[in-house]
């Protein structure tokens, strides 16, 4: 029976394949990375070929298409999506083989074929991961020194040259305060340098803190976060909410000192603003009553959570948390398709966090 069938798929399918491969190379050459749509198309083509092979009984082309689609998925997607795609391909291949051979399949041969599919995905995937890590490190190393120079130029150097030039009196309160800010800034630089450079979130928060310091607030800032996995919306929400929390300290706490702490704990990003001011009674409406609502709105909109604890006379603590990835290490999502997944997870977690904050609010406020 095999002798009668042509050894290749119909010409139309071959033409589509050829066009697709040309497109693939063209897009790849232009953008330098694979998107999940390209993987989707490649995978569907492979599945079409499998369907044809099940009818024709010739699966050489289909198997090769499965291998290349698996490799593409391994290279372009992060671990979980890639695993899903590869298992889908594997399942389709098994189905095709069963149909084609009427169920008379040697498990050993089938396992051998499947493991080759897996191997392709794994080899290309790990190579892509290594390249991504390498380029990320290279980016960091290349960008660090100019940022540092600019930082010092705008801060400590400006203050020092003003004093050296005799333009200001170094004993004046204004200069003293500025010097104190510079000291704090350089300390943060040392910290963030040792932690691998300033991240985008750090930079945003630096601006927020600078604004708060203009209001006369003394902000002790500690910690640094790797924000490379934060979606822009979450980063913006965290920075805005931090600004509001600091504004609230300046306006209502009755103290000029507060602490801003950045933490990452088990995949959760958390920013904490603490003051030792007059606090408020959580059972009554807090001063600056918009605070709780506006923080809550901002943070829940991006899939995060807020916790506000306070008592009369013993300060206020605002905890802003954004659930990053609880289950997967960060590198798994830095691939091209990470954003959609992050959004999905954030949305999923929003429900969980809302429920959790509902549960925790009464106890923490009591």
């Amino acid at each position, binding site marked *: 029976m095999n002798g009668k069938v042509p050894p290749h798929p119909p010409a139309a399918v071959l033409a589509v394949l050829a066009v697709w491969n040309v497109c693939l190379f063209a897009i790849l050459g232009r953008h330098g990375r694979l998107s999940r749509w390209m993987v989707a198309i490649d995978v569907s083509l492979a599945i079409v070929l499998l369907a044809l092979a099940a009818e024709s009984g010739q699966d050489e082309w289909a198997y090769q298409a499965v291998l290349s689609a698996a490799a593409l998925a391994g290279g372009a997607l992060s671990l979980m999506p890639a695993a899903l795609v590869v298992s889908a391909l594997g399942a389709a291949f098994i189905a095709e083989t069963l149909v084609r051979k009427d169920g008379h399949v040697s498990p050993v041969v089938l396992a051998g074929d499947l493991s080759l599919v897996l191997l392709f995905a794994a080899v290309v995937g790990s190579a892509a991961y290594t390249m991504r890590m390498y380029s990320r490190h290279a980016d960091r190393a290349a960008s660090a020194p100019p940022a540092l120079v600019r930082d010092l130029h705008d801060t400590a150097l400006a203050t020092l040259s003003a004093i050296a030039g005799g333009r200001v009196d170094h004993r004046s309160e204004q200069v003293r305060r500025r010097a*104190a800010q510079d*000291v*704090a800034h350089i*300390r943060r630089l*040392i910290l963030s340098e040792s932690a691998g450079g300033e991240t985008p979130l750090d930079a945003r928060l630096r601006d927020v803190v600078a604004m708060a310091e203009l209001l006369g607030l*003394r902000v*002790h800032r*500690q*910690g640094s976060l790797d924000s490379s996995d934060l979606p822009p919306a979450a980063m913006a929400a965290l920075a805005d909410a931090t600004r509001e929390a600091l504004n609230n300290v300046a306006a209502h706490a009755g103290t000029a*000192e*507060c*602490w801003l*702490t950045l*933490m990452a704990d088990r995949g959760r990003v958390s920013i*904490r603003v*603490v*003051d*030792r001011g007059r606090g408020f009674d959580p059972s009554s409406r807090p001063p600056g009553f918009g605070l709780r609502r506006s923080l809550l709105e901002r943070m829940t909109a991006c899939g995060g959570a807020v916790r506000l*604890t306070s*008592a009369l006379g*013993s*300060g206020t*603590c605002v905890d802003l948390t954004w659930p990053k990835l609880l289950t997967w290490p960060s590198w798994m999502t830095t691939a091209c398709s990470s954003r959609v997944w992050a959004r999905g997870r954030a949305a999923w977690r929003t429900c969980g966090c809302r429920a959790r904050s509902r549960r925790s609010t009464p*106890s*923490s406020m009591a």
Partner: protein
Amino acid sequence: MADLRLSGAFPTVDAFFDGVTSRPDVVLLDLMLRDGSEPDINVRRLVKERYQVLIVSAWAEPGIAAAGFAAGARACLSKDNDLAVLAATIRQVAAGETVYTPELASALLGDERILRPHLSAREREILLAYASGMTLEAAARHIGVKPGTAKTYLDRVKAKYDDVGRPAYTKLQLAQRLREDWNRML
């Protein structure tokens, strides 16, 4: 600040022992001294003579500050604090209290030395609250315990660090410490 008086300033701990005339209640110790001496050994020498030590440093590596704490320092402050904060801390240290300044708490949390004590989750939680600037009441409320309980956690942290910092000056003491630890393990 009428109750505070500077009784002398010295570049090194040796110079302090040579030159100190009236016994001060609190010694403010920088981690980086001119003679390049080891910070924790400096703390230990002062504590051995029953001085209350307050570490004041421009920037303390967590491990170094934690080693100073293990050696018996009462608190740790960074130099950018206000005079009022410094004065308040000096008063507490003079009264023999251990002051968990945010600097000290975050140093203990960031302590990655091999010889660090193992802190329980609760102890780390309370340190984290302190590290983020909370007072005892606020920290206790934040982790959902009574202030007295929070105080107990802190005392436990102190005890663990004291334990790690127990000096072993001689071979005999070292042997004794080993035996104590061994017996505790059994």
